[in-house]
């Protein structure tokens, strides 16, 4: 069964460092997303990506965040200068050509900023 894969599963970084979280969406999907879940809180939308550009972003997705689909298979989230409050589980998701009928989620990357 096709699945969304994320690497690494856990990343520890020092405050101020740049991190790149990687995702391989399901191969024939067209819409890609990043969500985050701060420990004990609900899952929050960060950004959606379609046709090689951001289609929607939340207020959380400020200038320190960026997304890229560098090679047609990977989908990355970069945090330019990490803060303590960026510590969270980050989920990648993808959906097919109907966009909003079902999103498939990866297992997540737990980011710990120290």
């Amino acid at each position, binding site marked *: 069964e096709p699945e969304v894969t994320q690497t690494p599963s856990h990343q520890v970084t020092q405050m101020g460092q740049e991190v790149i979280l990687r995702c391989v969406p399901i191969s024939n999907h067209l819409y890609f997303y990043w969500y985050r879940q701060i420990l004990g809180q*609900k*899952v929050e939308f960060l950004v959606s990506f379609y046709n090689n550009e951001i289609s929607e972003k939340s207020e959380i997705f400020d200038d320190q965040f960026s997304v890229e689909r560098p090679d047609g298979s990977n989908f990355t989230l970069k945090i330019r200068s990490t803060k303590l409050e960026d510590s969270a589980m980050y*989920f990648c998701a993808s959906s097919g050509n109907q966009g909003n009928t079902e999103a498939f989620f990866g297992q997540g990357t737990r980011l710990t900023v120290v």
Partner: protein
Amino acid sequence: AQSVTQLDSQVPVFEEAPVELRCNYSSSVSVYLFWYVQYPNQGLQLLLKYLSGSTLVKGINGFEAEFNKSQTSFHLRKPSVHISDTAEYFCAVNGKGTSGSRLTFGEGTQLTVNP
């Protein structure tokens, strides 16, 4: 814009008992509705979804949910739970007719099934 309210943050039940996890939503447009489950240290797995048609939808692991448009609710039910159903359950919505739109999640309900 949409919002989701899960009325119970924690639901403890005994094994083989029935359970209902409540979800209410608000939206200015028609919505698709979803329930996701998150087992400890894992990602989000789709349990079931309502897109259109019959208001009673059946999902995996014996769960079902009923869409009630007048009450803007989408409660999740299971007639007899197992220990393995212990997990966090999230209700989510997104806007119908808006391709690739964001999912808005509720706060989650921790279901704990005790022996």
